[in-house]
């Protein structure tokens, strides 16, 4: 977007433009019009450089809109530009931040043009616009409005204290082959700002059974009968349009009745993986990564995000992983193993990637729910997530323990908003989750508490 600026400067001092001011008392309307257009184009490109998706035709619309509301009223002009430049609520902040600068430049330029008509000299109009074309930084610094609007940089110092969390490490060894923890300690200390480290994990070779378990889980989540219909020989509805066309061949007697059936609507997946220290100590890292990798490859348009105290999108890394996601993450210099701020991570998803989640998305969260962030932030953001997403499924590594209860602060806050909470430490757990989903669906009684293996391993139901 930076290359837009020279073009604008050029058009502002366009050699083709001749000042219409002839030295009488009439203000230079031509220059005013030119100046307004130049400022509009520059405002649009400023917004674009701030990441606002301003449609290509919006500047034209904005100019027409300004012509309707006029330039007299600041708030009216702002409303007109909001209606034409914006199409996302998330872009509002960028607009509000950039508008005072635009307005200041526009008004001061117009004032100059209005006062300059007394003693016009050749090139006077150019001087006027030339001054206005000072770099955005300069004019912003001159503008008291802008300074008032600028927020001080936000300090995120809260929640740095150490917290003690108790993790039941007693694991069920129903399948026995991969115990995730050593079980020697029942309480550990984690810090919210725990040291991060580079991504290290051996390349895990999933067995066929494990791969099948993951695929089955993704399938169970993502296939729902849709409302659109497609041709089918065994469909339950007659397709009237095609039946009529076919009947023309037989003189209006419908001999064959083409049928249609609902075409399955695939849901997208959005995977949010907690890579804080506590999770990495509980789950086998290579299993975690290969699960994410397999899910990314299987599900339709799956987005993958890692979070500890911050959220980072790694969809492209997984897309180029070629069987070794750890290496791809390492190459991208992504680190993991910090503390956990689940609420902050969800809020970051809302603010930075709002379209990663929509009504056709199943959000799969892998996290132990041991949250050290602000609980109000978590409540707010999980509310948003639950409302926005088609479904939210939480995979908790701790929930494989027969004695597990979702009592940690983060998990207790999130629980009412979840469609299902399953245990997850190895792919076999996903096969169980898939089994429940296939039988009872997401709206049915599904979750870790219905896992039959729980009762087998001696945990009481109370």
């Amino acid at each position, binding site marked *: 977007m930076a290359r837009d600026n020279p073009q604008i400067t050029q058009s502002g001092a366009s050699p083709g433009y001749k000042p219409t001011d002839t030295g009488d008392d009439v203000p230079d309307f031509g220059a005013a019009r030119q100046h307004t257009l130049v400022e509009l184009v520059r405002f649009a490109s400023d917004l674009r450089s701030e990441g606002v*998706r301003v*449609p*290509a*035709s*919006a500047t034209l*619309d904005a100019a*027409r*809109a300004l012509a*309707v*509301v006029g330039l007299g009223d600041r*708030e*009216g002009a702002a*409303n*007109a530009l*909001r*209606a*034409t430049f*914006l*199409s*996302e*609520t998330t872009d*509002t902040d960028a607009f509000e931040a950039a508008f005072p600068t635009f307005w200041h430049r526009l008004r001061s330029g117009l004032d100059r043009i209005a006062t300059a008509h007394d003693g016009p000299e050749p090139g006077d109009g150019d001087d006027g616009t030339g001054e206005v074309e000072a770099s955005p930084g300069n004019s912003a610094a001159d503008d008291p409005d802008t300074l008032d609007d600028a927020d001080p940089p936000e300090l995120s110092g809260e929640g740095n204290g150490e917290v003690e969390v108790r993790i039941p490490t007693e694991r069920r060894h129903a399948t026995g082959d991969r115990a995730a923890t050593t079980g020697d300690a029942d309480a550990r200390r984690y810090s919210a700002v725990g040291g991060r480290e580079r991504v290290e994990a051996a390349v895990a070779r999933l067995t066929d059974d494990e791969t099948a378990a993951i695929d089955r889980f993704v399938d169970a989540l993502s296939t729902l009968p*849709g*409302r*659109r*219909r497609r041709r089918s020989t065994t469909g339950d509805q007659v397709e*009237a*349009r095609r*039946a*009529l066309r076919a*009947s*023309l*061949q037989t*003189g*209006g*007697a*419908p001999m064959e009745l083409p049928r249609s059936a609902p075409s399955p*609507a695939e849901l997208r997946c959005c995977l949010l993986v907690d890579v804080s220290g506590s999770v990495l100590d509980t789950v086998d890292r290579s299993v975690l990564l290969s699960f994410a990798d397999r899910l990314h490859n299987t599900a339709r348009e799956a987005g993958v995000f890692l979070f500890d105290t911050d959220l980072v999108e790694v969809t492209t890394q997984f897309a180029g992983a070629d069987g070794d996601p750890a290496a791809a993450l390492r190459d991208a210099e992504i680190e993991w193993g910090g503390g956990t701020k689940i609420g902050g991570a969800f809020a970051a998803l809302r603010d930075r990637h*709002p*379209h990663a989640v*929509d*009504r*056709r998305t199943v959000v799969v969260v892998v996290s132990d729910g041991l949250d050290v962030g602000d609980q*109000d932030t978590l*409540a*707010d953001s999980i*509310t948003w997530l*639950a*409302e*926005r997403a088609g479904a939210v499924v939480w995979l908790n590594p701790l929930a494989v323990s027969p004695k597990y209860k979702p009592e940690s602060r983060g998990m207790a806050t999130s629980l*009412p*908003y979840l469609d299902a909470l399953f245990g997850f430490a190895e792919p076999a757990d996903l096969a169980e989750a898939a089994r429940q989903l296939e039988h009872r669906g997401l709206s049915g009684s599904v979750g870790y508490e219905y896992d039959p293996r729980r009762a087998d391993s001696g945990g009481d139901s109370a």
Partner: protein
Amino acid sequence: MTGAFDSLTEAELEDRFEAADYVADDRTVTTVNLALSLGRPLLVEGPPGSGKTELGKVLAASFDTDLIRLQCYEGLTAENALYEWNYTKQLLAVQADEGTVADEPTPAVDDPDPGADSRDRSVFGEEYLLERPLLRALTAGGDDPPVLLIDEIDRADEEFEAFLLELLSDFQVSIPEFGTVQADQPPIVVLTSNRTRGLSDALKRRCLYLNVEPPAFQTEYEIVRRKVPELDVAVAAEVCAVVGRLREESFLKQPGVSETLDWARAVAQLRTDDADRPLSADEIERTLGCLLKEAADVGRIDTELLETLEAAAAAADERVEA
């Protein structure tokens, strides 16, 4: 571009809204005025119950034209939204035609069945067409353009959104068997969205954008006073204060303006005597079903929150501007 609303000023529009008891802030008035005078569709986004659909209805009422409403849902197809052929009528016509076709001379070898072709043309004429909302909006005659309200566009799928593009930019639709239908008079188009998914850039580019947020206390108070005149004015202020306080909680479903109005009516209905007594915690708790529509949300209301709400109601009088 349309010409019909070129001379419309914001003050006139405000008067019309006023006459229709629609309380709109400056941003809404300016944006609607722009949509009318530039002849562009208006995309209104906001949470449920914030008065988006009402805006379309009020526009139709205040310009005294037809409101043509298309409720979107997943799987909505062109047949439901635009037009459908009257298959029964077509089939009967084809069958009735059969005798005359048989009497015709034997078709030439290179043209095995010309009769089918002529029948094909005849049954795909205007008389066999059933108009659905979109086509009706384009072909509606009359002096004033109708208001076309495409409600909850985010519920329709992407395919339908793409299908709307031609309609929204050129106010015309193409019917394969029939040709292009152009609007005699471009309708006033209002699209609403609950923001449950992102709309495509192509759609957004064609529309003016208006984001509706839950109203500020004063605006909502004004709305309640106008729409629920039977409720005592002081109690109306308390109602708005309580709803405003409730919106600060993180609920699954935030109460919108329509919930406020429902609740205000409920409160007015239950007060047979003593109409201006202040809202009590007990009264709030009993009528909570008007405001909160999720079991999980209702479950979060405890004594502490009720007391906070009561306190908010008590402080309402001071917030009302003269």
